[in-house]
């Protein structure tokens, strides 16, 4: 029996996080009442014309630069002609022969191995409207989404398993969310994936006939759909049959893919340059400036955190999952050079109360507050329990940790302030002190416990035991 290997390429549509649509000033936001965000242009009224959104161009370029693409100094918008009720003009404005970016790569990590997946192209296009089916024999058309800006990111067919495909989509989402290009919200359709799946005999280098799986809009469905499609194609080939080039949809309930009826003429889109839009021209200097603005990407950050700051892999991954978290970490680190301490506090304390929605983030403390607090802790001026208390007290306030510590009378329990408590503890237990001095060192814990109790739990245990050791050695 011939052994087959799957070859997968992904086409991912990502909605750009702009305020307005790609070619008109209607709001691009999700969730309005039907046909609330429409104008002559996105309704496709006769005579209305498109004007390109600057911010959409910037976001598309930012994404393409992060994907190491070559940005085209000239790109062309074309019309893709087809009739569909949610495509109000009877054509979609997209980029075809001259896209905004070509030839990049995205590095993904699969089972501890890094793999560079080629990016064929990135192009800009407008979204279609939404149809709701089944109301008394009618389909209902809402054009709020019509004209919302998208980029389509096309990978090379260089993914060889459903796991790799899912890892690619996750990595892409991380990058796009990190850059603020996309809100990462799969449920609302901000990121939509089509997968081209084909099989070839192991060892072969030519591609087999592919099926295109449409609208795989979660990581789980993406992986499962690819798996069942690989199984389907394998049984077709094993049975002596041939895979037909077609579009298929995934039915998650029955966990199978099925052919979408393809109309005879469905594929002649009659692309031609849109005469309403002159070519988009980007200046080389502007592209360089944008390249500088993209900065360090999550994967590179993660590697640096591990290699240079000595953070564990899991911690580094958590810190780099959201740009705001990484920014908070780096800002705190700039004030207090204790990477492990700062990282652990962010992961365990700060993220617990944080609200991260897409690109938007809200933390309960600032980097300044966190750094000052951890400075007090590192200096032993307060202990871990006190630090948590101070943290809780300053959350969602502008209060400084030092003020909280002073107000709650915590400082006297650090440093020299501990001496009277330790001296008293030794004086109160002369027999235990003698035993210690006779060599029973583990009795130190007894003294520490007494001092801690006397301090109401507010003393720094490490400082207490150091001071007790010194006093008992006298």
């Amino acid at each position, binding site marked *: 029996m011939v052994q087959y290997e799957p070859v997968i390429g992904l086409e991912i549509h990502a909605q750009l996080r702009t305020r307005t649509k790609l070619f008109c000033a209607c709001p691009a936001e999700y969730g309005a009442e039907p046909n609330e965000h429409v104008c002559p242009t996105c*309704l496709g*009224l006769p005579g209305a*014309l*498109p*004007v390109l959104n600057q911010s959409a161009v910037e976001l598309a370029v930012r994404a393409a630069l992060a994907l190491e693409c070559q940005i085209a100094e000239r790109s062309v918008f074309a019309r893709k002609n087809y009739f569909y009720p949610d495509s*109000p003009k009877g054509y979609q404005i997209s980029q075809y022969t001259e896209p905004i970016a070509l030839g990049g790569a995205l590095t993904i990590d699969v089972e501890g191995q890094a793999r560079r997946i080629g990016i064929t192209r990135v192009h800009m296009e407008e979204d279609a409207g939404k149809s709701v089916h089944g109301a008394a*024999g009618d389909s209902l058309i809402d054009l709020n989404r019509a004209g919302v800006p998208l980029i389509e990111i096309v990978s090379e067919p260089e993914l060889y398993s459903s796991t790799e495909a899912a890892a690619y989509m996750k990595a892409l989402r991380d990058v796009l969310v990190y850059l603020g290009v996309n809100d990462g919200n799969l449920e609302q359709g901000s990121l939509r994936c089509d997968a081209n799946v084909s099989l070839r005999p192991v060892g072969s280098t030519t591609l087999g006939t592919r099926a295109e799986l449409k609208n795989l809009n979660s990581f789980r469905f993406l992986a499962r759909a690819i798996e069942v499609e690989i199984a389907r194609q394998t049984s077709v080939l094993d049975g002596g049959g041939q895979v037909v080039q077609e579009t298929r949809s995934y039915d998650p309930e029955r966990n199978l893919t099925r052919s979408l009826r393809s109309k005879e003429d469905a594929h002649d889109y*009659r*692309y031609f340059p849109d005469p309403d839009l002159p070519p988009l021209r980007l200046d080389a200097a502007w592209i360089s400036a944008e390249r500088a603005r993209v900065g360090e990407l999550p994967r590179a950050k993660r590697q640096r955190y591990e290699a240079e700051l000595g953070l564990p892999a899991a911690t580094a991954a958590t810190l780099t999952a959201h740009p705001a978290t990484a920014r908070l970490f780096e800002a705190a680190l700039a004030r207090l050079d204790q990477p492990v301490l700062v990282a652990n506090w962010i992961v365990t304390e700060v993220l617990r109360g944080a609200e991260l929605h897409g690109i938007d983030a809200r933390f309960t403390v600032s980097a300044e507050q966190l750094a000052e607090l951890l400075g007090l802790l590192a200096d032993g001026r307060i202990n871990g329990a006190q630090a948590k208390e101070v943290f809780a007290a300053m959350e969602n306030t502008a209060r400084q940790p030092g003020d909280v510590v002073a107000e709650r009378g915590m400082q006297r329990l650090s440093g020299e302030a501990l001496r009277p408590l330790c001296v008293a503890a030794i004086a109160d237990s002369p027999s235990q002190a003698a035993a210690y001095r006779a060599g029973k060192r583990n009795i130190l814990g007894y003294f520490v416990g007494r001092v801690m109790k006397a301090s109401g739990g507010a003393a720094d245990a490490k400082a207490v035991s150091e001071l007790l050791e010194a006093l008992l050695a006298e």
Partner: protein
Amino acid sequence: MSESVPSLVSGVQAGRLSAEALTEGALGVIERAGPLNAFLHVDGEGARAAARGLDERRVRGDELGPLAGIPIAVKDSLCTQGMPTTAASRSLTRDGSARSGWRPPYDATVVSRLRAAGAVIVAKTNQDELAMGSSSENSAFGAVKNPWDLARTPGGSSGGSAAAVACRATPLALGSDTGGSIRQPAALCGVVGIKPTYGRVSRYGLIAFGSSLDQVGPLATDVRSAARLLGVLSGHDPLDSTSATVPVDDYEAACERGARGLRIGVPSEYFASGLSPEVERAVRAGLDALRDAGATIVDVELPHTRYGVATYYVLATAEASSNLARLDGVRFGLRVEAERGNLDGLYGASRSAGFGREVQRRILLGTFVLSSGYYDAYYAKAQRVRALVARDFERAFARVDAIAAPTSPTVAFRLGERLTDPLAMYLADVYTLPASLAGLPALSVPAGLSTATDADPALPVGLQLIGPAFAEASLLALAACVEAACPPSTPEPWA
């Protein structure tokens, strides 16, 4: 109404004339002009209200615009908010009648500019359906007739606008020109018509035919009136990505500049076989007038002229096939549901019931030239030939300031004469297409009448002037010289 627009506007501004009286005058002529079938919608009420408003503002001492009180007719291809806008197509009606026409929720930019300038929009004019035609016979609402001879076409596609000005219903009208649709009817009706440089006037709100060719422009009784209107229409529009930011010249001042020192090229390709001797005689007389006014006349060559018609019909129909896809019976316009519950049936039935035969023919042609396997041989090839047509002009304009030629090879032809032969109809545009392809400004100015014979009455001849991009001012200077030698005339019944 023989006064020019600048003088009428001064009259209104000074209180010598009232906007209301001018509007009543226009509405009266429109009513008498019924047999011309030049108007699809007459907005008497709206026009009277606008005119009264202007007169009241004058009494209050308000500043009135550069078209204060001037009645104007607007081609039905232009969106007018709340007023029926059909482009003479059933597809833009609810039930096939002009009165059930689509009412756009917005004004075309040129219409907003007219309103802001104080013009009074009295009517929407009939045309070839969706601007496809050269005779205004392809209207879903009946052919327009030429005020000079009711048995003849006014030309097209802006035939209603040309007829409106020719019969002196309004001194001004708006047309649109894709391959000659302002200039050719202007020539056949004996009025002035200007197709501006591509990008000079906003296309926002013009129902698109061939987007890379379409321009809105003035039709007017005389050169100075046309210049006034062109000044109002011109200028950058942020709603149109193809709208130029080039500053607008003083077109009225240009009309007084004269022809002295200007070099005019005469292309032999425009005086070739197919040109009627009467047209040639009148155009050559116009050239003599320009020479007498101090211009130098030289020969130029435009060798790719002969490919203009083929190039144009590939590109314009390709763009049209896509532009007209939005007329699908879903959001506005005609819907026919052959059988309930069939979306494809809705599209097919609505579009076939909505479009006339010529429009369907051009949609099919445009679909063909873009379709898989033919794109390179037709569409892509035509865009390259278009570049050669433009290069011809560039070379000529290195030597001359303007090119003079006939606008149309013949005077107005008889209604029905070319309807059965689409290609013969396309050839009516042979002299106007090249400037459209190159995106250059061009105008038609009356150059007198043909000689009357037993068979034919005397009919207007137009002289076409083509200039380099954004050189509308020099064209107007020259046109004013032609006009001085051949003053505008009005057809007998409307004089």
